[in-house]
């Protein structure tokens, strides 16, 4: 006769079910492994029985990879092709052109030390520790960026910062994405009209992963915030038609991103926060640029020096006059400043770039994000048109 289980019975039954489940998963895994081995006979053995020359080759590759840490070393910067290790072994250095962070043009200029015979350099290196484990003092992604733009008199800095980040994520070069279209997307998502402006910078990552943007040519930027006819019908087409056209040609979209928040309780440079310069340095070393929002306080034209925290008469940092969005593209550790791409044209700052001190970032940075991956562009290849080819008469 069936009886309802009491509490102990239920516990035992649950435990039994769990044991059965675990056993079946383990069994499945073993069977799958066996099948793979049967399909690729001798797989495990081949991995275990690498021939000695191949192992040596792997070790050499590993050694070269380790040498990457030397890329900011004096010898690397000065284009010395190889150095000799403490035990007499020679290491070929990675060519400058293949380095992730190729030194900037100034650093590439040959130093007078290069006139020193190589043998002397080798002798010198033998007495010095070889591996430089410290991170590079300077990371500068400016050469990778697209051109510096000008937002004119509109409050569209978030569009410019986010497009700058997206352009470089797509490889930079001459790519020019439409800030006008981005502003249309952002304001629509925020429930504002297309002539409005202003946005929490990190929200642009959400909107750019939900919708793509077009190139500048499809929807050009309108400089005057008061005198453009709405949306982006500057091509003379009625707005809805232009909108459809723009949406159809808007493939530039974020696939994955990582937001970075502020931690107001930080007292040391620790943690994955926007107000931790060490974290931002690490991101930049990893090849990322950081789209970020910050308070603006105490900036003095022409913005060519390092913008630092200024104190008011009360001894506190000056209050914010507003929020601004830009793109962090590098850092200079000895100088304690970040290199930031701005959108005020090339005649402001250092050819359009600002230097913000580490303290400024600690004090005023609000939030930001890095783009991890973008959607690949799908190229539509037109079928070649068939046409009549004139028959060639062969001469006998």
């Amino acid at each position: 006769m069936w009886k309802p289980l009491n509490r102990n019975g239920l516990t035992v039954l649950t435990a039994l079910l769990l044991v059965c489940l675990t056993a079946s998963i383990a069994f499945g895994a073993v069977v799958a492994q066996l099948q793979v081995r049967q399909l690729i006979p001798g797989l495990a053995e081949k991995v275990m029985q690498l021939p000695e020359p191949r192992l040596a080759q792997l070790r050499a590759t590993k050694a070269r990879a380790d040498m990457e840490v030397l890329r900011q070393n004096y010898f690397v910067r000065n284009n010395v092709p190889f150095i000799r290790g403490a035990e007499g072994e020679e290491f070929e250095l990675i060519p400058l052109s293949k380095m992730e962070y190729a030194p900037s043009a100034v650093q590439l200029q040959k130093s007078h030390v290069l006139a020193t015979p190589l043998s002397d350099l080798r002798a010198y290196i033998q007495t010095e520790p070889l591996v430089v484990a410290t991170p590079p003092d300077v990371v500068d992604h400016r050469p990778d960026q697209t051109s510096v733009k000008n937002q004119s008199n509109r409050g569209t800095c978030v569009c410019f910062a986010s497009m700058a980040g997206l352009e470089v994520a797509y490889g930079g070069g001459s790519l020019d994405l439409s800030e006008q279209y981005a502003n249309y997307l952002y304001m629509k998502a925020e429930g504002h009209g297309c002539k409005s402006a202003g946005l929490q910078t990190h929200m642009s990552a959400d909107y750019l992963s939900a919708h793509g943007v077009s190139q500048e040519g499809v929807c050009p930027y309108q400089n005057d915030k008061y005198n453009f006819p709405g949306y982006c019908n500057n091509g003379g087409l009625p707005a809805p038609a232009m909108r459809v056209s723009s949406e159809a040609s808007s493939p530039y979209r974020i696939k994955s991103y990582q937001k970075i928040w502020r931690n107001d309780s930080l007292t040391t440079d620790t943690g994955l926060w926007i107000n931790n310069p060490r974290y931002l340095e690490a991101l930049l070393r990893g090849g990322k640029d950081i789209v970020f929002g910050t308070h603006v306080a105490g900036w003095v034209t022409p913005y060519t020096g390092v913008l630092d925290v200024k104190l008011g008469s009360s001894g506190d940092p000056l209050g914010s006059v507003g929020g601004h969005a830009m793109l962090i593209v590098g850092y200079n550790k000895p100088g304690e400043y970040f290199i930031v791409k701005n959108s005020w044209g090339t005649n402001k700052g250092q050819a359009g770039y600002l230097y913000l001190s580490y303290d400024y970032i600690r004090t005023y940075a609000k939030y930001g994000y890095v783009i991890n991956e973008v959607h690949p562009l799908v190229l539509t290849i037109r079928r070649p048109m068939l046409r009549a080819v004139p028959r060639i008469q062969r001469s006998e």
Partner: protein
Amino acid sequence: MRKALWLAALAAAVAAGVVCAEVSKMSKGTLWIVPYDHQGVLRVAPGDVIEVWTTPLAVIPENLEARFRASREGRGVELVGEALPHKEGTMERLYFFKAFDPGEATLKVELLDPEGRVRETWTYRVQVGPCETSEP
């Protein structure tokens, strides 16, 4: 003992009633959000708060040294605070005025250039009526 318990329960009920009455009094005020280009008279009640948004000046070099200033003329309303909107791109300010007594006032927001000269002015007329007219 039983009497003491009854008394304690009664006192707790009275205290709860008083607190509820105070809270409901506090929550009666209305928040009026006023865009910079608002025209027309605002009719508010004592206890109401008026949040005036300034013009959305862009964060660009030409504007960085400009400043906003808010004040009020007349009676019934006081400037109680200001804030920055939580976004990037514009230099708007939010000014908070609170209505205290019946009366008429004009709220004034001015945009000043770096030398302190008034570049532009916006005004908003406010009538603070008795409590009965406070329904929005």
